[in-house]
């Protein structure tokens, strides 16, 4: 069964550095999402992406964040200048149709020192 994959599984970075989190959605899916979960808190929506455009974003998704689908398979989340409070588990999800089930990747744990 196809799955969403994410790399790396764990990323450690220094405050102020740029990070790129990578996701490979399921191949025939067209809608892509990023969520994050700070330790001990809720899973929070960051952004949704369709047809090479952001369709919705949360207040968390400020100018420090960007998303891109650089080729036909990858979907990336970039944080330009990481802060300590960006430390969290980041989940990618995809779906073929927005009304369908969202399928989640295993997550990338980002640690900002």
């Amino acid at each position: 069964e196809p799955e969403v994959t994410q790399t790396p599984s764990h990323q450690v970075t220094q405050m102020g550095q740029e990070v790129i989190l990578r996701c490979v959605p399921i191949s025939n899916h067209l809608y892509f999402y990023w969520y994050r979960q700070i330790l001990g808190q809720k899973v929070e929506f960051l952004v949704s992406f369709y047809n090479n455009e952001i369709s919705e974003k949360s207040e968390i998704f400020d100018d420090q964040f960007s998303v891109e689908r650089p080729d036909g398979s990858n979907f990336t989340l970039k944080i330009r200048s990481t802060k300590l409070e960006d430390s969290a588990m980041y989940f990618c999800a995809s779906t073929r149709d927005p009304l369908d089930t969202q399928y989640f990747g295993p997550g990338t744990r980002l640690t900002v020192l």
Partner: protein
Amino acid sequence: AQRVTQPEKLLSVFKGAPVELKCNYSYSGSPELFWYVQYSRQRLQLLLRHISRESIKGFTADLNKGETSFHLKKPFAQEEDSAMYYCALTRDSSYKLIFGSGTRLLVRP
């Protein structure tokens, strides 16, 4: 604002006992409700959604619009049901999932 509340952080039951994981929501429109499960060291996966009215792994959930609840139930818990359970909703014109804080279910032998 839309909100999903799961009042229990931890629910511990013995194998064979009934389980009810509580979920309440606040949204004035017509939400779609979901239960996601995360087993140890695995990814979030959909357990069930109210629109499909399915019973998955013996779990059921009924949407009660009057009480704005979507509690997850299972008559006889199994040890393999031990996991983190998240209630979530999507609302009209938006497909983002709004999650509750999760309930850890521990089924003891």
